[in-house]
């Protein structure tokens, strides 16, 4: 079971075309990369800035499309899906956590966590409220449910964002530098939270980070350099 690949990247390349004056400049971010993420895995993607880590994450999450190659999520090729199908897939099977919490500022912690459940009319208001409440409780935020994002600390905001990512019980959590904007104590709390989630619920987690300490807490480290897979280390 655990050896089954949940995400597959097959010869994926990504080029960006930018206009500079009248001239079109094509930049290759990922020349050709292939790897698998296994179900229940806790993987860190590391590498220097500009190496293409975040692009990889967006490709895996269907937020961006590869120039060539295939991205397969749970046996379904997502690189060819239409925008609406991708939105449905992101909502049902994936959870995102970003470097900045990106919570909706006008809504309370509870309401932010409810949003993915309410999108597409997936859950009723009461169901969403109940589950969001449970999730925040699990992440130690039961006394902050009514607080707006600006009334929470950086660590608390990030935990709310993780609760939101978990809202629809996704297959995979994709996190982009989730501790990049936190003090060391809050960052430690987030590392532990991810480890715990992976250990207890077998949640598949992919984290992009350049924090070596965080990466060392995962089970596998994919090191990217200039858009290529430089090393693939299993830690356990």
């Amino acid at each position, binding site marked *: 079971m655990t050896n089954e690949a949940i995400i597959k990247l097959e010869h994926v390349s990504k080029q960006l075309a930018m206009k500079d004056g009248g001239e079109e400049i094509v930049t290759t971010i990922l020349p050709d990369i292939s790897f698998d993420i296994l179900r229940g895995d806790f993987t860190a993607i590391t590498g220097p800035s500009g190496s293409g880590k975040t692009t990889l994450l967006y490709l895996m999450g269907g937020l961006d499309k590869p120039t060539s190659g295939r991205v397969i999520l749970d046996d379904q090729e997502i690189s060819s899906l239409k925008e609406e199908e991708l939105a449905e897939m992101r909502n049902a099977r994936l959870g995102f956590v970003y470097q900045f919490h990106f919570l909706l500022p006008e809504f309370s912690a509870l309401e932010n966590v409810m949003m993915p459940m*309410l999108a*597409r009319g997936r859950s009723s208001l009461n169901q969403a409220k109940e589950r969001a409440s449970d999730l925040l409780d699990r992440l130690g935020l039961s006394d902050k449910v009514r607080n707006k994002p600006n009334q929470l600390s950086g660590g608390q905001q990030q935990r709310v964002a993780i609760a939101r990512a978990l809202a629809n019980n996704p297959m995979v959590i994709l996190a982009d530098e989730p501790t990049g904007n936190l003090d060391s104590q809050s960052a430690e709390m987030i590392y532990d939270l991810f480890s715990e989630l992976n250990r207890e619920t077998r949640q598949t987690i992919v984290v992009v980070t350049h924090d070596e300490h965080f990466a060392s807490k995962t089970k596998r480290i994919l090191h990217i350099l200039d858009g290529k897979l430089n090393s693939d280390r299993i830690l356990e």
Partner: protein
Amino acid sequence: MIMKSNYHLFMIAFRQLLNRKRQTFLTLLGISVGVMVLITAVSLMDGLLQGFIQKIVDIAPHVIVSGERVKPPVPDQLVTSRNGTHVIFIKNISREEQEVIRNYPRVESLIESDSLVQLVSPLVSTDVIGMFGTISEPIRLFGIFPSKENGIEKFSSGMVSGNYGALERTPDGILLGTTVAKDFTVRLGDRMQIVAPSGTIYSVRVAGIVKTGINDIDDNCYVNMRLGQNIGGFSPDEASYIYIRVNDLPKNGLVAHTIEQETNYKAMTWEQKAASVVALFKMISGIVYFLVFFVIMVAGFGVANVLITNVMEKARDIAILKSIGFKRSEIILVYLIQGVLVAVIGAAIGCILGFILIEIMSSIPMASSGQSLVSSSHLMMGKNPMYFVMASIFAIVVSLAAAVGPSRNAARVNPVEILRGER
């Protein structure tokens, strides 16, 4: 069910608007003022037109039969070609200058026999010179049967001074319209002189002063039929006009047609008589509505402005919503809801303000200039729930149209660009 399942979209829309309180307030104000101005303008124009029509219908004849013939009288041509001269004779033409209804009692009884007719009042009309003290002015004088004419022009309820019944009992009495009385500065019981077209001077006593509110009537004066015929030089069986009131106003056209067929005298409905005035009213209304349309359009720009700013400012939130699986249509709906929310709240406030403004305007006393067609003590404002419904629908449609562009822009937000901080 739709409301319930889109509750979260409604809340996103609502809270984003609430987040920009000042701009949202100004936009609401724009819509409110637009709706208020539209409602008030419609009420004013409709009130004037309806008030005019109502007064006409109440105290003006529904059909006027005049001496003019539908088909010209056939000349009895006696043509002789002696010495190359042609002579045409037309019999029974006594006064060429004035067309009159001959043998009016016969015509009157013919008209009265129509079951659609309620009241018939024959009268004569003459342009004379009125004199009082040093003042002399041309006036139009009507000879009437006071009790019959009262059924049509409702003089008795508009008496400013004197008793209307006194006119019938005073053979030399004259009833003056309020404008004429003011011009001559005469009072009840005063004697004034009337110079007939023939040059004869008649002395008459002011038996009453009347104000109907229709200046066309208040500019005239009235004497008994017999005196009117004498002054105007009419024979006892001649009348200038026959005024008619019908039982059912929309059928006045039919009555007029029947009279023309049966008597060959021209019969004119009040609509035909007032056609140019009604057309003028409608043209002015059109111009007013056109101008008010722009007020609402400007309010629409306000809606577009607040939504464009919201979409730009909330690009990151839109990107997040998309990344967690919101559909394009859901994003579009958020901003359409914002447009409708602003419009509905703005229209509701505009309706309340419009209602208050109509009440205030209709209570403003208005001095009659004497120049207008219909005078009234207050501004005649129309009151119809449809003004509010139509103005609100219009504001909502304009706001929705204004929201379409920003909503589509919101749906086009590329989450990757935003999340990477490229925008």
